[in-house]
């Protein structure tokens, strides 16, 4: 990976992490549930750039850790492990890299994310801390819907503007 690309990914990760940690938390419902990190991460995997996804996951997660309320929550590790799992699923199960696969991978990544957070909250509550074990169903539904919209928008943007999927198909056949 070139240095310029690496820097670009780090900056993108920082902005996405800062958005999730700061700006998003001020926004009213339902915009408060816009979480762009995981859909962007899936985009990189769908575009067959897993290394970019890993760099983006670590940088956005690290910034989220540094600016989230209550201190470090190992978001960098969470996003990195999710990126690895999604890359594995994209390589072995959902291999066609279609729009449907992109949406399915995004929803799967969100499920992994919530599973991790539920385990973390269980541990915190076990230690006497407070907090919701799982989000409200409205928040779940809305977040999943927004995730699907973001990945669809990114996929179509990539397809119609940058012609990446057309190029990929032409080179393949």
């Amino acid at each position: 990976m070139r240095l310029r690309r690496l820097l670009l990914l780090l900056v993108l990760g920082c902005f996405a992490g800062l958005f999730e940690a700061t700006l998003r938390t001020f926004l009213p419902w339902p915009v408060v549930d816009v979480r762009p990190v995981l859909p962007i991460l899936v985009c990189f995997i769908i575009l067959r750039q897993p290394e970019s996804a890993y760099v983006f996951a670590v940088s956005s997660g690290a910034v989220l850790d540094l600016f989230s309320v209550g201190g470090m929550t190992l978001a960098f590790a969470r996003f990195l492990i999710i990126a690895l799992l999604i890359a594995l699923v994209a390589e072995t199960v959902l291999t066609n890299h279609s729009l449907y696969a992109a949406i399915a991978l995004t929803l799967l990544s969100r499920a992994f994310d919530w599973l991790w957070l539920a385990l973390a909250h269980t541990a915190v509550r076990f230690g006497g801390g407070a907090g919701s074990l799982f989000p409200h169903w409205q928040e779940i539904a809305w977040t999943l819907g927004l995730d699907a919209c973001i990945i669809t928008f990114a996929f179509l943007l990539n397809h119609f503007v940058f012609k990446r999927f057309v190029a990929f198909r032409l080179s393949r056949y």
Partner: protein
Amino acid sequence: MIILGAIFAVALLHVAGLLQPVENGVRWALMPVAQAFAAIGSATNKNGNNGDTVQTLKQKNSELESRLSSVSVDYVELKSLQEENISLRKVANFLNDSGYDHVGARVIARTTDPQLASVLIDRGTEDGIEVGMAVIADDGVFVGKVTSVSQRVATVTMTSDQGSRVAASLGGEHQLLGLVQGEGNGVARLTLVPQGQALKANDIIVTAGTEEKIPANLAIALVNQVDGKPTDPFKTATLEPLTRVDKLDLVIVLRPAALRPH
């Protein structure tokens, strides 16, 4: 295994505090962007309608009207007392005489979990902030206390957070009344109030001043409803906060003057 090892190593280094210089450096570099994001988010939130429906607004209006009628009798007297208080504070220079200094801070992040009510502010140990210090809104209402702090940022736990506990007394009285416990969802409850203690709706609950870094007589909330049977040893009361945490953009940390950095 290598990745898991790396994650474990980073977590260990963080706990040991060896990553502090790096973390502070990144926070310093990104703080202007975080503050800009917070300002944008805050402005957007103020311009939005926050999802209040007509039904909700009507209900709020009727509640406010009933409250207005109940407090209107006291208004004139309170107004004159307030004016007197303002002039006295100016003369006495309250903050200096009480041994407290104040540090303005911007809220740069909030928790979105309804059970929790915590915010991240852009002040830390280098501004003399310490764990346990009182945090007030710009109108002087006590909103919470500092629960964790690093060099450049600090976490403030609000009174409605499920983990929050603040010693409280009744406005105008100088004895410990009970404990304000956070209940989540923006609600707090006054607990451990002796059964013999007179307490009624619309009483003002203030800080008791028994905690080391929290001065007395900072308004916390209004009593909404008093609960408990006469046979219970203690009674409780649901409290209505005097300021909305989700509207807080700027807060003031009360710092003992002795800790003022030079």
